[in-house]
């Protein structure tokens, strides 16, 4: 995510135009030479608006200059903020679509709780990934005009991203038994490491949300007769939890979610224990005749 301050080029004329439109009082403050700091300065400068400075009643020449530059600054701010406001509105509209796609995928995935593993259910959920990819692509497109500002608007899509990660990671585990790594998750959502990527903290929080689904999954699978499930889930979740413990987390949302994972792990262990002592798992002894309720 480089090139953070690439300027919105079409809005800016050559630097001489800039100096002449700013009040002369400001000219000495403009840097004289290199193009890149000047471009950076321009990115902070509000874009030159097309309307002329507001008419002010004639007074002393100096104060006229001052008051018009005073108002001009605010006029420029208004143009700038209206633009970023528009970007935000467009983003919010697309984020609602992301939410809808996420909900559909979540509801498809909920079916795995109802039966033993079944490829039809997974197919339906997998199909939603394409939809997700499409909406995230729309977000990328909107952001393309505002380079370097991913984190300015990040709050607007943060929780939807986290939920998306939890869903695709859960699906991936159901399909392969493995952890969906960050790079793959990024690819699945059609994102990449340039301007619009998958924030690592969002990815990690998404994994924590996925872990929250596992206790319920394991319970329902055992009820449906899938007795090998607890062992598989336990191995996976233990490993995941241990890996999370490698992280140096500070006291924030990610930390809270990680703390929740330990309770998920505990419940999965309990289910595993219940199944094991009753010899229900494959490879466990089958004392059907001997054990009575």
């Amino acid at each position, binding site marked *: *995510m*480089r090139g*953070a*301050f690439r300027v919105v080029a079409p809005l800016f004329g050559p630097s001489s135009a800039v100096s002449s439109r*700013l009040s002369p009082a*400001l000219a000495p*403050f*403009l*840097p004289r030479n*290199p193009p*890149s*700091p000047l471009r*950076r*300065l321009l*990115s*902070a*400068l*509000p874009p030159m608006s097309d309307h002329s400075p507001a008419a002010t009643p004639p007074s002393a020449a100096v104060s006229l200059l*001052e008051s018009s*530059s*005073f*108002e001009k*600054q*605010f006029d420029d*701010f*208004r143009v*700038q*903020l*209206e633009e*970023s*406001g528009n970007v*935000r509105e467009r983003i919010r509209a697309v984020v609602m679509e992301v939410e809808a796609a996420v909900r559909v995928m979540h509801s498809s995935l909920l079916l795995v709780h109802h039966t033993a593993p079944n490829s039809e259910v997974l197919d339906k959920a997998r199909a939603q990934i394409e939809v997700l990819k499409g909406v995230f692509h729309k977000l990328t497109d909107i952001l393309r005009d505002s380079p*370097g*500002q*991913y*984190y*300015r608007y*990040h709050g607007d899509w943060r929780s939807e991203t986290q939920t998306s990660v939890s869903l695709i990671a859960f699906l991936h585990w159901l399909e392969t038994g*493995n*952890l969906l*790594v*960050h790079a793959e998750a990024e690819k699945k959502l059609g994102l990449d490491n340039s301007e619009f990527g998958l924030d*690592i*903290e969002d990815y*990690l929080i998404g994994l924590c949300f996925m872990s929250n689904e596992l206790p319920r999954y394991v319970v329902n699978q055992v009820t449906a007769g899938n007795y090998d499930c607890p062992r598989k889930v*336990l*191995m996976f979740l*233990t*490993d*995941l*939890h*241990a*890996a*999370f*413990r*490698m*992280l*140096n*987390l*500070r006291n924030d949302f990610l930390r809270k979610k990680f703390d929740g994972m330990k309770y998920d792990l505990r419940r999965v262990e309990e289910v595993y224990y219940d199944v094991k002592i009753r010899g229900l798992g494959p490879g466990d002894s089958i004392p059907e005749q001997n054990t009575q309720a």
Partner: protein
Amino acid sequence: MLHVACGRRLLSFIMTTKTQHLHRIATIQGFGKKPRTLTTDDSPIRVEFAQHVDYLNHLNDKRERVVKASRDVTMNSKKVIFQVHRMSKENREETLAKAENDLAAVTNQYMSKLVKELHGTDFWKLRRSYTFAVQEYVEAATLFRFCKSGTLLNLAEINASLLPLTEESIEPLQINVLDYLLGLADLTGELMRLAIGRISDGEIEYAEKICQFVRDIYRELTLLVPIMDDNFEMKKKMETMLQSLVKIENACFSVHVRGSEYIPLLGSADPDYSFLGLADTE
């Protein structure tokens, strides 16, 4: 402290030394408990997380440094503001000269540290960590400029003054519109104090100049606040700003009505009529 089992695990850990070290730290943080695992230590999950450890450590360290630099900027900007408030009719020049030096020190010593840490996406990513400091800095710089020349220091001017702080190859820190406007809102509070102080000192015209200045700022900001990002804070500041403005206006009114006899009580918005009877002693 480390269990022998942990020592063995370390030996079998085929990662880089750094990750081994981090693993040791993680184990110590677990108060010597062995991380529960049913798989080997070079499992793909561990491999994946090793990079995330680095990423988060790097990010958190940077955040720490930004917070520290921000604290310095905030404290020293406040000092500049206090210094400016010490200004009176007699010592105007010296006070302002000292304030100018202090402000330059804030820019060169403390803002420069912030500038170093914030470039690229970190500018927006870490904004919550430094925004308060930048607002304070804007407040100090604009207050000083107003006292010096009666004009508003533009965002462009502040950013121009920050450019020399960065080497050519690195993208320089530029204060964004939102932090500037938030700082401007705080400025009006200081201006209110300044105005009341000037009235006490008998500098009525100066106070009226401040009054007009704050009026202009307030008016311009009303158009911008609705379109600012996350404007909850700004909306609160606007309420405070209006109160400050009304205080200034009331003070100017009282002086205008009763002349320079009036010494207002700081913090009270109500005109004080207690001197009504004594107004003729001149």
